[in-house]
């Protein structure tokens, strides 16, 4: 015993023995998408061997058939040792499929699962992980949780088996920031709203009297004042309808109807630029159209998995983002338009050509929405 013990010690080579192999890690991915919680748990086949003795024929090799034979035992084990709970209650794990994942240190059994947490938007998540610690105290469960744009990682260990996630954490400031960005992105990446804005302000540098003819305005401040009236009316309107829709005071019609209506507003604005039907008080029209656009924005917030009264910050943030984007577009466009207003270039290409193009696009979108077809590339 003495000699053997000495050998045991000497062979250690204190320097860096632990680098020899990878220690035992499992990889848990959890995805929260609005109201559903799903994920995947990858456990090393080596660990499965320790748990269940997968290598039934003792040939030192693990085959797919041998893994499949343990599917039920593995699933039950995971259901026993991984407990998930949201603010709505406990989530039972529903296995979907068993596959194999290849990592740099070998093959893992991948249990792909859904959960019974599907009723309401998920606000908090508690996870309790107790796989393998009783057999290998150095085991770690590496968690990667995705919730909208956030990716949160943590490591479960024998001494740290629980994890708590709060969707609303991070404070109001961070939430606000997120939604300001969403609002900005919605305008810039959403062709439709940008187009509407441009269609609305293209003619700002002109005025029409009875003759429907376009006369360039003399002073920049007239231009700004006109624009300000229209845009403010538009903004006030979409803020109003956004709030009313979000808090379900207004129940919007089907998404396609709303989208078609938004397209119609663009079409009408473009036509008005060409035909000059509405000459003064364009702000009234801006207001009316704003109401429609606001309903459209509300569906974006709904798509992002939010509804109800927890929305105060997101709502304000989103709206601020939208306003900032609008201001940016106007600030970029208006001075240039003012300088070019007397030129045939502006009149011809921008006002006429631009309005015709946006009108045509809007018509196309309307047809797509109404007919539920898709033929435009964007």
């Amino acid at each position: 015993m003495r000699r053997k013990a000495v050998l045991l010690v000497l062979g250690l080579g204190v320097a860096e023995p632990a680098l020899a192999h990878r220690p035992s890690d499992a990889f848990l991915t959890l995805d929260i998408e609005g109201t559903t919680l799903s994920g995947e748990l990858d456990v090393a086949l080596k660990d499965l061997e320790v748990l269940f003795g997968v290598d039934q024929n003792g040939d030192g090799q693990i085959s797919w058939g041998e893994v499949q034979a343990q599917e039920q035992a593995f699933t039950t084990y995971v259901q026993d040792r991984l407990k998930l709970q949201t603010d709505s209650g406990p989530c039972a794990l529903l296995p979907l499929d068993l596959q194999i994942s290849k990592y740099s240190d070998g093959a893992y059994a991948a249990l792909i699962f859904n959960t019974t947490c599907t009723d309401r938007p998920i606000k908090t998540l508690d996870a309790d992980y107790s796989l393998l610690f009783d057999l290998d105290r150095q085991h770690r469960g590496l968690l990667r949780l995705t919730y909208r744009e956030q990716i949160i990682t943590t490591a479960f260990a024998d001494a740290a088996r629980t994890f708590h996630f709060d969707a609303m954490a991070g404070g109001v400031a961070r939430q606000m920031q997120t939604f300001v960005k969403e609002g900005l992105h919605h305008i810039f990446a959403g062709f439709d709203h940008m187009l509407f804005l441009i269609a609305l302000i293209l003619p700002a540098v002109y005025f029409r009297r009875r003759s429907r003819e376009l006369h360039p305005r003399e002073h920049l401040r007239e231009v700004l004042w006109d624009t300000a009236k229209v845009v403010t009316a538009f903004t006030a309107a979409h803020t109003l309808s956004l709030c009313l829709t979000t808090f379900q005071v207004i129940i919007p019609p089907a998404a396609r109807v709303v989208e078609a209506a938004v397209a119609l507003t663009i079409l009408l604005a473009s036509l008005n630029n060409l035909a000059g039907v509405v000459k003064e008080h364009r702000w009234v029209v801006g207001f009316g159209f704003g109401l429609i656009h606001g309903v459209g924005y509300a569906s974006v917030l709904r798509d992002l998995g939010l509804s109800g009264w927890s929305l105060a910050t997101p709502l304000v943030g989103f709206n601020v983002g939208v306003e900032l984007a609008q201001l940016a577009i106007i600030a970029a466009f208006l001075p240039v338009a003012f300088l070019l207003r007397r030129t045939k270039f502006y009149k011809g290409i921008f006002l006429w050509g631009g309005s015709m193009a946006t009108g045509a696009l809007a018509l196309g979108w309307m047809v797509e929405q109404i007919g539920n077809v898709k033929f435009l590339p964007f």
Partner: protein
Amino acid sequence: MDRKRLCLALAVFGAASVPAAAETYKPARADEILEVLPRGFSVPPGDRQLPPEKLAELRLQQGKKTGDPRAYGEAEAALRPWWDDPKPPVAIRMMRATILQFNHQFAASLKDLDQVLAEAPDATDAQIMKAMILMTTARYPAAQAVCESITGRRPLLRMACAANAKSLAQIGTADEQHRDLERLVTLADFLGSQEKDILPWVLTTAGDIAHRAGDNDRAEGLYRRSLQLEPEDLYTITSLADALLDMDRPAEVFPLTDDRRDQDGLLLRLALAAKRAGRADAQELASVLGDRFAAAKARGGARHWREEAYYHLLVVDDAEEAMALARTNYETQKEPIDRRLLTEAAVKSRTKLEGM
């Protein structure tokens, strides 16, 4: 008019990023082989009806042979009833000290070893482990004292231990160091047959001493002699690879490491050799190694700072990161190689080292 969803990479709250699987798929055939297990890899669940101390002993033996952290983790789990016990039985305390040492919890391990030696002053294995920990943490005079107190008729063991401590402390001139080495090797030749169990270790230790003294040729010879007796000793293989790299013979590292890529330490030497020799898969090896370090980082717990520092210094040429890792390494390990690492990193990152 699709509303495009935002993909803000707002990766907040995250610790390190968790490594991703290369691929997830459903195998087509039941007889597709997915994994090959090393021999004696684990105790089958059916055989686990052993008393926990027996199971721990079995797993520790396996761990010593392969260096597999799973074996140590399983031993630790088996010893759970005693893990926080301040006064466990001696045999269990010795096992606990071994596991703590493996996890680089040196202070806790020493505490246990001192207790073992208080109850059993002649426990050679405890003396050796204590000496080794003291050497790793640069307490050389204390290490030497422990070596010389090794009792029992083990002159070779005593001498090798003491010589190693002296060499690490870099005591004596180059000539004196060479003389010590000669004496050790001669003694090994004479007494090797009597203390056969430790001869491979003595030869490897002599190799280390030669390597430290700058005599790489001698070191190579000694390492190879050791490998003839124990061909699978990971520490010796790693040390030989280092000597070959120092002598600028990277191609000779390949046969030592190509089939042993499971071991991170050897993969590092392989990646380094591949880079120096301009092998086609050098980049791929480097990135696999990077994944391993990322995974270790994601787990939390002990990290292999020395290896990681060398990786950043020599494989990916990130001197800044290497410097930070070298510093962290030096907080727990202070062997000459750790000092050398610190200096090399400082030079490459143009950092000034103060008061080292």
